[in-house]
């Protein structure tokens, strides 16, 4: 790796400690050659109100999605985007963002589809950086265009499509949405249409573990022991399980994918980005309502 890893003791407990950096570490290493800091937020304007010095913005809505097909950028689009952001294939990328890194984890996951190897999260994200009184600036970074290669996206290793989920039934599924979304009860006020999916509920046998459980109050990740209690003891996952995580559009489940893959070290965890907005509108896929996971339908 081009840039040293954060050897903070508290990351040592995780399966892949090199995937996290602390705010202290980042403050010390800002400007290191080979390091690119990327801010990715839910709010498309938050970066403009102030960001970590030198950080570039990547917006999932407007930059990571294909504008026509419901899909991510292709290899050429990704190469153009990253070249514009001054990122090379060798860059160490530290992602951070709002909402306990929800969107930062999503961007990291999309970069993983293209096999960008050195991707890390800032533990605690934007909120922790700001809470510690560290500097945010509105000054635009000066970016020197790079020449990122065209890499074919790998849609097999960490991504699942609807048919993959159907074939996967009987193996562990984690639904990371809120309990109300999981049970399928309406959450919108009367007289307003439910937007996004035609049916409520969840994929049969899915365990409901809202994504935010993985984050402590200050937005940092919970300890390995706590995470194991949630996902292994609580949701019944085993270290060698093949797991698919999903939510509404695949963003919150990227966060859980990060936790399962990089912090707990499960291999073969996939994120179903079609998620409920696809499943809940698809014809004839099995759905369970209520707070119980429900049984896998016979085939």
């Amino acid at each position, binding site marked *: 790796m081009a840039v040293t890893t954060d050897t903070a003791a508290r990351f040592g407990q995780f399966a892949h400690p090199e995937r996290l950096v602390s705010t202290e570490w980042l403050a010390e290493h800002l400007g290191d050659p080979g390091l690119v800091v990327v801010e990715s937020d*839910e*709010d*498309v*304007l*938050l970066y*403009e*109100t102030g960001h970590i010095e030198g950080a570039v913005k990547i*917006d999932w*809505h*407007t930059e990571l999605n294909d*504008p026509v097909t419901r899909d991510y950028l292709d290899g050429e689009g990704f190469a153009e985007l990253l070249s514009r952001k001054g990122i090379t294939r060798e860059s160490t990328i530290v992602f951070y963002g*709002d909402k306990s890194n929800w969107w930062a984890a999503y961007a990291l996951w999309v970069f993983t589809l293209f096999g960008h190897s050195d991707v890390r999260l800032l533990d605690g994200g934007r909120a922790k950086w700001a809470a510690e009184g560290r500097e945010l600036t509105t000054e635009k970074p000066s970016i020197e265009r790079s020449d990122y290669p065209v890499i074919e996206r790998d849609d097999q290793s960490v991504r699942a499509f609807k048919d993959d989920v159907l074939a996967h039934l009987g193996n562990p599924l984690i639904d990371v949405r809120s309990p109300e979304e999981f049970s399928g009860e309406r*959450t*919108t*006020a009367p*007289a*307003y249409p439910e*937007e996004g999916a035609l049916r409520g509920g969840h994929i049969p046998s899915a365990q409901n573990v809202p994504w935010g459980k993985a984050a402590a109050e200050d937005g940092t990740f919970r300890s390995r022991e706590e995470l194991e209690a949630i996902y292994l003891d609580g949701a019944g996952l085993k270290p060698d399980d093949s797991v698919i995580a999903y939510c509404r559009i695949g963003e919150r489940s990227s966060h859980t994918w990060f936790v399962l893959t990089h912090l707990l070290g499960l291999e073969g965890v996939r994120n179903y980005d079609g998620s409920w907005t696809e499943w809940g509108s698809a014809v004839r896929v099995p759905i369970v309502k209520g707070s119980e996971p429900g049984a896998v339908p016979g085939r």
Partner: protein
Amino acid sequence: MSLPRRLSDIRDEFLELEGEDRLQLLLEFAGELPELPERLKSDPGMTERVDECQAPVFIALDLDAEGVHMYASAPREAPTTRGFASILVQGIEGLTAEELRDVPADYPQMLGLNELVSPLRVRGMTGMLGRAKRQIALKSAA
């Protein structure tokens, strides 16, 4: 159906700009969103949550002799949502109930923000406008 003057002025302001500048204008609107009046701050029951927005945003509407007044609150960390709210607060101030009713439901689509901000996010503003219309319709029917 004609667009009320203030709303059409705001639309023109956006459409005169391009790309980044259009986003900057939205950010300026975000900065202009007034605080909720004290009477609304102290009584959360007076405001309605807009579920279509990703960030928690609350709106309240009044109708009096001077027309419609809209109030909104959204967190500092949600400048886009604040910008949307601010556009509506400024744009529908003083309209009659009928004028607000006749504001096209797709006004948010007219600001040229779909590509810059994304259709999903713009939907939050559509939800806000729909709820504002509904609150005033209920008040004027009462």
